[in-house]
């Protein structure tokens, strides 16, 4: 069920830029910059899933980290619940973290191996709900003491993600990859965020476990109206879970629109090639393969004009000099290509 677009988006990113300096040696001044995120703008509505897809070096992971302010953007604004968090200090950001949490790709390195699972999930509660009083109030449980309310909440979160609450005393290494990912989700849910940024949350999992985690994320969205920025490279997963999709290439958005629309009628030649490259189980659904020549260029030195033109099967002379802008090609479906229609 697609959420009805609200007047006020939950997240609005305007003209975001994230750059990394490239230094030749340890002590030389930066001569060049990698424009990892290059003038990116988009919105996410409450309760919606925006899928973000692209290949290596496109900037999707950098964008995801910038949204939760694990990185500081060079320019642009990130409006989260009517406040621009792009330039806040670390201390100021801490309070805003209740709204926006993150789930990471690697279930093995994203959990502190020296804390029990209960402590990992509870850490968020400790930081954001400073007294047992607040926890009790939040849960409307007046009879319990502070420590019990805390334990109750942790048990509740473990149950929500499909784990046995009795396992709160165990350490991460005692769980499988899929279970650790569930713990990461419980940790993200602890503070009841409105937006969760998911950075390739199922890529490191076995196929049969991926389905469990994808179903869990969808159930949680239905029950709690939480929005997701879902970063992945697997187009089928993205299409399945997203309401809208954004495709990135070399730091820029090249196409964005409703998930079905982008995947079934892609307008940008890069998206078309990407989708045609996805291997298909069913031969009936296979479309002619568009093989892109060459490699993805280095983001330090992107090509002039349209960044995709050296590999584009339909490039024209103007593509080499004039950078395209995002145009609305079909209802709510935008592409950054001079020739898209």
């Amino acid at each position, binding site marked *: 069920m697609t959420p009805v677009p609200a007047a006020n988006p939950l997240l609005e990113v305007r003209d975001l830029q994230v750059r990394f300096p490239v230094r030749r040696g340890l002590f030389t001044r930066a001569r060049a910059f990698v424009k990892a995120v290059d003038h990116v703008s988009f919105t996410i509505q409450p309760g919606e899933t925006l899928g973000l897809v692209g290949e290596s070096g496109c900037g999707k992971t950098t964008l995801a980290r910038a949204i939760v302010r694990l990185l500081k953007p060079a320019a642009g604004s990130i409006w989260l619940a009517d406040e621009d968090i792009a330039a806040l200090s670390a201390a100021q950001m801490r309070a805003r973290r209740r709204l926006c949490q993150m789930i990471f790709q690697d279930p093995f390195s994203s959990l502190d191996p020296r804390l029990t699972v209960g402590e990992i999930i509870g850490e968020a509660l400790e930081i954001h709900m400073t007294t047992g009083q607040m926890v009790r109030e939040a849960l409307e449980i007046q009879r319990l003491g502070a420590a019990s309310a805390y334990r109750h909440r942790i048990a509740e979160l473990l149950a929500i993600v499909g784990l046995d609450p009795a396992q709160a005393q165990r350490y991460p290494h005692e769980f499988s990859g899929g279970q650790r990912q569930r713990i990461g989700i419980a940790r993200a849910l602890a503070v009841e965020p409105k937006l969760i940024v998911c950075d390739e949350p199922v890529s490191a999992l076995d*196929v*049969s476990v991926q*389905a469990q985690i994808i179903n869990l994320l969808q159930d949680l969205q239905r029950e709690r109206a939480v929005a997701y920025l879902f970063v992945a490279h697997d187009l089928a997963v993205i299409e399945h879970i997203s309401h809208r999709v954004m495709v990135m290439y070399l730091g820029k958005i090249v196409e964005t629109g409703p998930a079905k629309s982008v995947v079934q009628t892609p307008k940008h030649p890069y998206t078309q090639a990407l989708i045609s*490259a996805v*291997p298909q*189980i069913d*031969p009936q659904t296979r479309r002619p393969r568009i093989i*892109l020549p060459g490699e993805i260029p280095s983001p330090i030195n992107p090509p002039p004009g349209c960044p995709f033109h050296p590999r584009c099967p339909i490039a024209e002379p103007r593509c080499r000099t004039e950078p395209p802008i995002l145009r609305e090609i079909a209802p709510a479906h935008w592409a950054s290509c001079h020739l898209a229609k």
Partner: protein
Amino acid sequence: MLEILNLQIDFASGGRRLRAVDGVSFSIAAGETFCLVGESGCGKSATALAIARLLPAPPAHYAGGAILLDGVDVLRAGRRQLRGLRGGVVGYVFQEPGASLNPVFRVGAQIKEVLKLHRPDAATDAEVLRLLKLVGIPAPESRLKNYPHEMSGGMQQRILIAMALAAQPKLLVADEPTTALDVTIQAQILDLLKDLKQRLGMSLLLITHNLAIVGEIADRVAVMYAGQIVEIAPARALLTRPWHPYTQALIASVPKLAAPGERLRSIPGNVPALDAMPGGCRFHPRCLKAQPDCRLKKPELIEVEPARWVRCPYWNTSPPSPS
């Protein structure tokens, strides 16, 4: 040209011996593309490495069975024979190209190293260039002196394929060769493998967990679960009419592009640990069609139709309707 008969491989772990590969049998004909599919820990990589006896033993122990590679029993061959087989009859390509290439040698030199070992008369720059062209590397002259880190992942994988082909093997074993690559590069590499197979008449054993890759490239497929093969069939037949409940569940749990569907059918539970194998059928605790005697009787791999094998006595039944 490859025949694996009842292969059994144990691994020593903490004083115990755990059976990672339990009675695996299949064969690959000349010029055929065979896919071995399964999730992590099912034993597919161990089986693949065993073909050239590449598993370090200890901790591995070849507990039983035979592997006939071009007529030679690999598990009983002498060192000299093995050296000839490795590279000369069977070549390997692995998942992480960056980890397989020596970072301190130029790629041209690494390819030449293979030539010196197996075809010393052909160990020339000209032959290296020919191989680079064969695997589709543009402007190969400029690449001869590159170090691995100067190339992208897709290029590195092509170099590894060139190295594997340098010795002109009859069988190429590729273990998840495209998993670490972007999807557009993956498409290039799969196309390359298909093209090479056709041009060189080489057999290909491709190991993957991605059923869609199977659909694109395989002639025949074997599905592994917990150290055993549970189904063997021609690729098209397996993907359109899977018989084993695990294969069916696996296919149902994969999101497919442009296919409608509200909810993925996930497989409950987890793959069993090697030291905690369920009694009877290994899949029964997670199986939708499980019957009472699945807990007690170990099913055999049976050829139900020509070229279609399945390890389940109830493959032909429907699952009980959801309550």
